[in-house]
């Protein structure tokens, strides 16, 4: 059992097709301060691999990926 991080910002990208959720995230992260915790909600399975890869590339921290009933919540911290 892991603790779900508390997010400062939630991005609802449910129903957006690839690469929508990742692009929503990239667009938003640009505007956020370092230390902000973000929850990205996505129904697109590819996001669970594409998003962590981008976070590594761009130097932000992946905190947690939670599978919910109808979507995934990807938690990250902006660096």
């Amino acid at each position, binding site marked *: 059992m892991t603790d779900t991080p508390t997010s400062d910002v939630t991005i609802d990208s449910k*129903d*957006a*097709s*690839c*690469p*929508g959720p*990742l*692009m929503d995230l*990239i667009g938003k*992260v*640009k505007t956020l301060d370092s230390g902000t915790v973000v929850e990205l909600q996505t129904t697109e399975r590819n996001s669970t691999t*594409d998003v962590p*890869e*981008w976070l590594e*590339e*761009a*130097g932000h921290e992946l905190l947690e990926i939670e599978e919910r009933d109808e979507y995934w919540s990807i938690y990250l911290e902006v660096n």
Partner: protein
Amino acid sequence: MHRIAIVGGGTGGTVLANRLASELRTEIEDGEVEVRLITADPNHVYKPTFLYVPFGKKTVDDATRPIEELIDSRVTLTIDEVTDVNTDRNRLSLADRTTSLRYDQLVLATGATLEPEAVPGLAEGGHHFYGPDGAEALRDELAEFTEGHLVLSVVGVPHMCPAAPVEFTLMVDDWLRERGRRADVDITYTYPINRAHGLESIADWATDRFEERGIDVETFFNVDEIDPESEVVETVEGTELEYDLFVAIPPHRGSDLVADAGLGDDGWVDVDRHTLEATATEDVYAIGDAADVPTSKAGSVAHYEAGVVADRIASRARGQTPTATYDGKTVCFLEAGMDEATFIEFEYGEEPYVREPSKPLHWAKLGYNESYWLTARGLL
């Protein structure tokens, strides 16, 4: 009188107005129905032509016709800008009118707006071929460009015509080869996510072709800033790339009209992807680039959506229950150089298959571009 209002006389609005004029001809002639098209620009612009302008193959004039020539005489045409949509009172405000217009059914077909200003330095340091002025300026620049580093960057996603950045890159490669300049020009193509295109099959196809032609590819490349003085582009990911000629697919946004009316953030109308009805209110539809549906912002999409919405609106105008739906059908030609092309076709959730490029498909694309004017009129 049942009043149908369409805002925007681009591909979607024009095809829709002409379809409705034909489907509801009796009701219009009997004075029971009015189809009104309100559009800000007295000219209809066929944007795919702009892809050929930088290479001197087409002119901006080729892309433009007076909208009056394309619209069925049963449509009431109003050249004006719609400044406000009041969905509580079913009324539209217009820039040049003191009184507002009532509608029973409204279709927003306001397209996409280019927003180069969203990225610092892009308007000053970058070129594009997504509008008339940009395409002409790029033509002049390319004509003088004999050596150096040409970077084609997809800065904004979503953008009009998902094929265009790949097409431009393959075309410029071929064009420089034809002119004997390719050896002195390095070409780099960049894309924001971890592959060369949003659609996986196009990404695979383009990556192979780029490799064959010695075109460098940079992925996870999200442009943050351009320094026009030192000719350097910086990304959110921390990459820096020097360029001599920077060609961008600029960021796009929808219409303020849509955002102000509470119909969708960023100016794209939130709609049901099958009925194309706005989710926030009744009696409003969106088609074309303005509609937020999970497929490409392409003319073919606008065209198919116009057919579906014409059927739904005509049914409702006659007091029947609409049944037509849109399944995401999208068709795109893809130029693979200056004289060969391929073609893709897909629906929601499908991955397109990219056929082997051929000369006949290139001529088919050029032929379609010519016959487009008949399509817009509703004749094809």
